[in-house]
């Protein structure tokens, strides 16, 4: 999170360092945004790799498809359930 590239390093209530886009959404929606609502390629890969290291895939071969893509889908579903949402809006930010 280099501030010269990302602007403000925004911090959520539950202590995640995020891009300033989350700060813009939170402030203008007037709604607290938590870590489940923020996803980066790195965070997805880190979780999948750590899970593999902890035998979470029971020694199976871990690949981008389906394991990374499933992790992305699971996270979206989790957010939807938690917020009892009718739909989930996914905003992709490329810096």
């Amino acid at each position, binding site marked *: 999170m280099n501030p010269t590239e990302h602007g403000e390093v925004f*911090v*959520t209530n539950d202590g995640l360092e995020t891009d300033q886009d989350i700060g813009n959404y939170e402030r203008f929606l007037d709604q607290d945004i938590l870590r489940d609502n923020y996803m980066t390629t790195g965070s997805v890969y880190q979780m999948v790799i750590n899970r593999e290291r902890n035998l979470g895939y029971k020694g199976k071969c871990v690949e981008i498809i389906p394991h990374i893509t499933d992790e992305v889908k699971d996270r979206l579903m989790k957010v939807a359930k938690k917020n009892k949402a009718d739909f989930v809006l996914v905003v992709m930010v490329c810096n």
Partner: protein
Amino acid sequence: MQLATIEFARNICGLTDAHTTEINPKTAKPVICTMAEQVEKIKEKDMGGSMRLGACDCKLHSESLSRKLYGTDKISERHRHRYEVNNNFRKQLEAKGLLVAGINPKQNLVEIIELPKHKFFIGTQFHPEFKSRPLSPHPLFKGFIQAATRK
């Protein structure tokens, strides 16, 4: 808040070599130092997402300007830091008029400082801007603008 504390220590308390260990690790008067919970992390170079992060409770001093502006005794604010006011210097700073207006009740950390002799002098360890919103500006920013417009 950290640099304001150093300035106060140097020019009001007479600790001319006061500093933060972030800038001068060997300072004789480390009025700002690494938080206890961070020492090991820095040693191990565990520097990613490992600061004191997110919402923490803060108890406000009943006579402080902060208490007046917030209108409540207990607040929650968001943090992002590894360094803090060194509690070993707290008495010395307070004796010369620095008001510790907010502390973290669990860890006894200085979260807000004030200079009551000024119209508005508040320094915070947390980031009030994280909770300021277009239609509900943060009480400290509102208080600052109000103080600036007062004749």
